[in-house]
Each structure stands twice: as structure tokens, then as C-alpha cells.
């Protein structure tokens, strides 16, 4: 007798509030197999991007993800600058790094809160999000917005950081040290948190490399990668910071890496602020055209390396734009980490990579095994949809608006 049952997490996640579907095949409480189904939320961003000017594209990619709303634009403007060999003033580089790191702090606090909620520790959840508000306030002070900052543009940034604001920002940043220390101590010292997070969801260094894991997911496994250091961009070559790594790759290590990274981020922002206070100058080189060519841009987003590729034909819009978000690489590692775990541990393991589904969504195309043909094309899908509508109308006796015949073939 087959004792396997499927415990569904999704298609709409109860907590992460994003469309994704993890099918946990369980025997009792033990997970023996995992199906990952993504692609519920395909938005055609890359295609849309080809119909927008370079300036508009930046606003578009900002809306790929509400959390990485600086990482995507930053990678994108760097790709455009790479394609057009556009110079960027130094002051703009510091502002880019500062905003990017603020985004990292708020993203990590967000994850920490969610992780606390996942293991039933709601106090951590509320506290982490309470202190995240302070970070959002700083971002509002700098950019005028709490989440979608609209700061990046090819050739620089849209707003300068006022020198008069810098002491206030610096003070707010320092006030974040204590809460983050509190979270660090809570995670490092609480025996019950250890019981829930240590030794579960282990991703070994080899497997992290095999899956191409990125960001904190990889660094927690001792896989020392960070594009801020490995492929210098923005102001990072001029800044002093450490890349945090751990060894074991379990959920505990992933939490520790993220918490310690927040301290590094504060350090980086303080250095940026010092530089901004000392120097002046323009924040935008005001490029007028992007010559034909292709370019790549990357940025170490809170979840790992985000990568953009842009090709220009000399007109005012990209003819090809490719995006790869870090969760695209990190989510598959769940197949390695969740097998053998219990259902109780599965939720926190699945969340430990800090998945961001809306960054990751791709359209899935089914291809026949033998002939390599697409099994369903758009016309087939339309036909299926019409048939289902007809069937439902016949079953329920309800009448809807009749569909035009050309859609029915």
C-alpha cells in the first residue's frame, strides 16, 4: 500500500503571500520527495522592457520585486552603462552603494521577522518589522519613498543626499545597532531557536556549488562568493567591508549570516556617508544616447547576485533585456535541503533561502519528448479556456457573455 500523501504548500503561500507551489510528498511527517512548481505569475517583463526607452526600463525593473527595488535597477543601469560606456560620477557611486545597503538591511530584517513567524516566534516577527520601519524611514529621508525609490538612472542617480541630512541619517543608523545586536543574541543564545534551526536543512558546500546557489544561501554553506568583492562595482572597491561566511549551511547558519551582514551594511553606509560629507560634485553625467552594443550589470542583492543583460542597437530602447534574479538559483536547492526533513521543519527550510517568487517567475513551455514540438501553443490554451467556459456554463446553467467566434477557431 502506498502511504504517501501530498502536503501542499501553495499554490498561494499562506505566509509569503506569493504564488508558488511546493508539493511535499510525505510518509507520515517525513518528506520523501519535493515538486517545485513556479510560473504562476509570469509578467513578461523582459519583453515589455523592449518596448520602453532606457529611462523607462529602469522604472519597469524596479517593479520586478518590491523588496529588491534597488538591486534590479542598479544592475540594469550598470548594464546600460556597460553597453554605452557611460561614465558615472563618484558621488553617485557612493549614493548607489548606500541605498543598496539600506535595502539589504530592510530585506534581512524582513526575512528575520518571517523566519521568526515560521517557527511560531511571533515576538521576533513583530520586533524585526518594527525596527525595519526605522530603515524605511531612513530610505524615505534619502529618496522620498519607503519602498520603490526611483533613485537609479543611467549615468548616475536622480537625487543627491543633502549634506544637512547626513548627521540625522547617521544617527538613525547608529540607533539600529542595538536592535540588531538584540536579534543576534536572541538567535545565538536561545536554546529553543537552536533546537528548531540547528542541523536542519543542511546544504553542503559541494551541493551549493552544484546548484549555483547565491548570496547568503551560498555563504552559509562556506561557499565564499559575493559580487561586491569579486566583481567590483558601484563604490565597493573604495569601501572596507567583510564578506560573512559560515560553515554548516543549516537554517541557523543562514540566519547568522544575514544578521551579521546587517552590521557590515551599517559599516558600509557609514563609510559612504563620510565620503559624501567630505566631497561634492555632480551625481549625474546626463547621457543623451546609448550607442549600439551590449552590456552586463550585476549587483549583490540581499538574496544573492542579480544579473542583467542589455543589448542596444543605438536607438533609445533596448532590443534585448535579460534578467536573472538570485531566487532562480536558490529555490532549487530546496530539493537538496528539504528531503528527509519533517513537515514541521519543511516550512522553515523552504523559507531559509529567502525566496522571492516574483523575481523568479518564468514562463514554462512544455515540449514533446519525441518531436521537440511545443505541446500547447497560445491558440491551444485559448481553445481549452473556451471549452472549459462552455462546460461550466452547461453544468451550472449560468449564461456568460458569448465569446467571439474568431477566438474559438
Amino acid at each position, binding site marked *: 500500500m502506498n502511504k504517501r500523501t501530498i502536503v501542499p504548500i501553495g499554490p498561494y503561500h499562506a505566509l509569503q503571500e506569493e504564488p508558488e507551489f511546493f508539493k511535499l510528498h510525505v510518509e507520515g511527517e517525513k518528506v520523501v520527495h519535493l515538486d517545485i512548481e513556479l510560473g504562476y505569475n509570469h509578467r513578461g517583463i523582459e519583453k515589455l522592457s523592449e518596448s520602453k526607452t532606457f529611462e523607462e526600463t529602469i522604472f519597469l525593473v524596479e517593479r520586478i520585486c518590491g523588496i529588491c527595488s534597488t538591486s534590479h535597477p542598479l544592475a540594469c543601469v550598470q548594464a546600460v552603462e556597460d553597453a554605452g560606456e557611460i561614465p558615472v560620477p563618484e558621488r553617485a557611486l557612493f549614493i548607489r552603494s548606500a541605498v543598496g545597503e539600506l535595502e539589504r538591511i530592510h530585506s534581512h530584517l524582513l526575512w528575520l521577522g518571517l523566519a521568526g*513567524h*515560521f*517557527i*511560531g516566534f511571533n*515576538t521576533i516577527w513583530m520586533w524585526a518589522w*518594527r525596527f525595519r520601519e526605522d530603515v524605511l524611514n531612513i530610505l524615505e529621508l534619502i529618496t522620498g519613498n519607503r519602498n520603490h525609490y526611483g533613485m537609479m538612472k543611467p549615468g548616475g542617480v536622480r537625487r543627491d543626499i543633502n549634506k544637512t541630512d547626513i548627521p540625522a541619517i547617521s544617527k538613525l543608523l547608529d540607533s539600529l545597532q542595538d536592535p540588531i545586536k538584540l536579534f543576534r543574541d536572541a538567535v545565538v543564545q536561545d536554546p529553543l531557536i537552536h*533546537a528548531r534551526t540547528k542541523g536542519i536543512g543542511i546544504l553542503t558546500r559541494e551541493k551549493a556549488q552544484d546548484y549555483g546557489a547565491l548570496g547568503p544561501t551560498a555563504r552559509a554553506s562556506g561557499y565564499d562568493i559575493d559580487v561586491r568583492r569579486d566583481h567590483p562595482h558601484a563604490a565597493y572597491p573604495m569601501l572596507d567591508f567583510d564578506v560573512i561566511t559560515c560553515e554548516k549551511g543549516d537554517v541557523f547558519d543562514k540566519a547568522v549570516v544575514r544578521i551579521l551582514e546587517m552590521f557590515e551594511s551599517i559599516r558600509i553606509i557609514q563609510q559612504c556617508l563620510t565620503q559624501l560629507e567630505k566631497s561634492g560634485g555632480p551625481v549625474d553625467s546626463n547621457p543623451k544616447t546609448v550607442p549600439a552594443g551590449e552590456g552586463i550589470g550585476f549587483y549583490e542583492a540581499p538574496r544573492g547576485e542579480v544579473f542583467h543583460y542589455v543589448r542596444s542597437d543605438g536607438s533609445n530602447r533596448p532590443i534585448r533585456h535579460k534578467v536573472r534574479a538570485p531566487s532562480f538559483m536558490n529555490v532549487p536547492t530546496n530539493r537538496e535541503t528539504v528531503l528527509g526533513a*519533517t513537515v514541521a521543519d519543511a516550512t522553515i527550510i523552504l523559507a531559509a533561502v529567502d525566496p522571492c517568487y516574483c523575481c523568479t517567475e518564468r514562463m514554462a513551455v512544455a515540449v514533446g519528448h519525441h518531436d521537440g514540438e511545443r505541446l500547447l501553443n497560445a491558440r491551444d490554451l485559448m481553445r481549452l479556456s473556451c471549452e472549459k467556459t462552455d462546460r461550466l456554463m452547461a453544468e451550472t446553467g449560468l449564461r456568460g457573455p458569448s465569446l467571439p467566434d474568431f477566438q474559438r477557431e
Partner: protein
Amino acid sequence: MKSSMVLVEFLLFPGLLFTAIAGLLTTWVDRKVTALVQMRVGPPLLQPFYDIRKLLIKETCVPEDGAVGLFLLAPLLGLAGVTLASMILWRTLLNVQATFVGDLIVLVYLLVMPALSVMLGSFASRNPLASLGGSREVKLMIAYELPLVLAILVPVIQANSIRLGDLLTAQAPIFSLSGALALLVCIACTQAKLTIVPFDMPEAETELSGGALIEYSGPPLAMFKLTRAMMLFTMPVLLVVLFFGGVVSGPGWLPAVTGFLLWFVLVAVTIVVRNTTPRVCIDQAVRFFWGPVSLVALVAVMLAWLGW
């Protein structure tokens, strides 16, 4: 006693109505204190009542494949159990001579009813997540009932009676070593009996999306919530009766005030524990209750036997 009188006692005071109101007020205390701990504002005083009223006017959805009768009867079972338990407790508190010999044993059985009703309801709904929640509830109950009963034995041994009235008038067991240990065990077991963090895995919202109660809606869900609220009120009352008997019985207002304060402290302990711990896994919980907790309970029973 006339049967009509019993009916009044069961439905109004100190049965359903009284316990429900007291229970819902206790959940308000829980929610308010939790909110303050978490730097939130928290709900207004009557919010728990609004919540129940809202559920009562909602539609009852019944799972298609489920055992409908059992599915709908299960919440009634739990509600009846906790109502009777509270009634017995309060009759003793109001008049020490009011109940019968062996009422403690009946009480222990009645307090199992809420957990039992959750199990029956979850299995009757035939949802995989509910089944997982139900099986966790079974494991959890098996885990905590043993140390709980052992710990309840301590006051019984000290008072040499299985009647609540005698326990209430006896010397309070808390002033002995065995009594103090047994109270600690009881507090841990209460947390599990109320299925709140760290032992809320049968309903773990984030793991099983509501688990055992996932298919419930409308009035049946309201009954479960009410049962939960009444348990939150009744369990600390039971602990006060068991362990602080001599302190809270007697004439005058002083014992009553002391009893209320002790009850409040026990509720506060529950709330604080719930806000400072993560949820543990079911295997960890079983190991915890059968290991250290049972051991402490056993030691307490032996000490009580030896007269400590």
C-alpha cells in the same frame, strides 16, 4: 437538587455563559499583553466577543468527503466537556461541600474532551493537513497526560482525598517541595493542553495553515474558539484549586482576592512563555514531556509519598 436548577447551573452560572464570558475576557488579556510585548496596540476589550459573534453569523462549510455528523458534533463535545469541568470547579469554589467524592477524576476526564474533539473533528474533515494536525494532537496528548496526571497525584496524596472540596480546604501543597515541583510540571502541561506556543503544532498556522481546524468555519469554528478561550480560563483555576487550596479557601474577601491574583499570575506565565519561545517540533515535545517533565513529576510523587 432539582433538574431545572442543574440546567440553570449548566447554561448560565457557573456553566456555559459565565465561563464563556470569563474565558473571552481572559483571551483579551492574552491578546492585549501579547500586543504590548510585541510593541503593538492590541484589541479593544470586547474584540473577542465581536470575533465570536462574527463567526456565529458566518456560513458553515462542510467538507464534501468528510463524515458530516462527526464533523459537526466534535466541537459540541469539546464545549460540553469544558463547560462541565468549569461547572464542577466553580461549584466547589462557591460551596466546598457541593460536589461528590471522586469529582477530581471526572474533572481530569472532562478536560481531555477539548483535545479529543479537535482530534475527532480533524479526522472527520478528511483533509491531509487536518489529519497531520490531528495526529500531532494525539501524540501531544499522549505526551502530556502522563506527567499531568502524575503531578495532580501530588495534592491528592497530601490531602489524602480525591474530592476537590477536601483539596481546597487542605493545607496548600505549594508550600512543600513536592507541591512546588508538581506545579511546575502542571504549568508545562497546561501550555500543551491549551495548544499554545511552544506546543501549538496541531494547529501550526505556518506549517499546516490551521492544521486540525483547517476545514472549520462559521459556528463550529466559533465553538472551537470558545472552547479554547474557556480552557484558557479554566486550567489556571484548576491549578489554583489544586496547589493553593488552603490559601484561597475560607470566609471573607481576602482568599478570593488572593485566588484571583494567583490565577492572574498563572495566566501571565502562560502568556509570557508563549511570547518568548518558538514552536517546537512534535518529536521534541514528546521527548520533553516523557523525559525531564515526567521525571520531575515522578520525583514529586515520591517526595509527596515520603511527606515532603
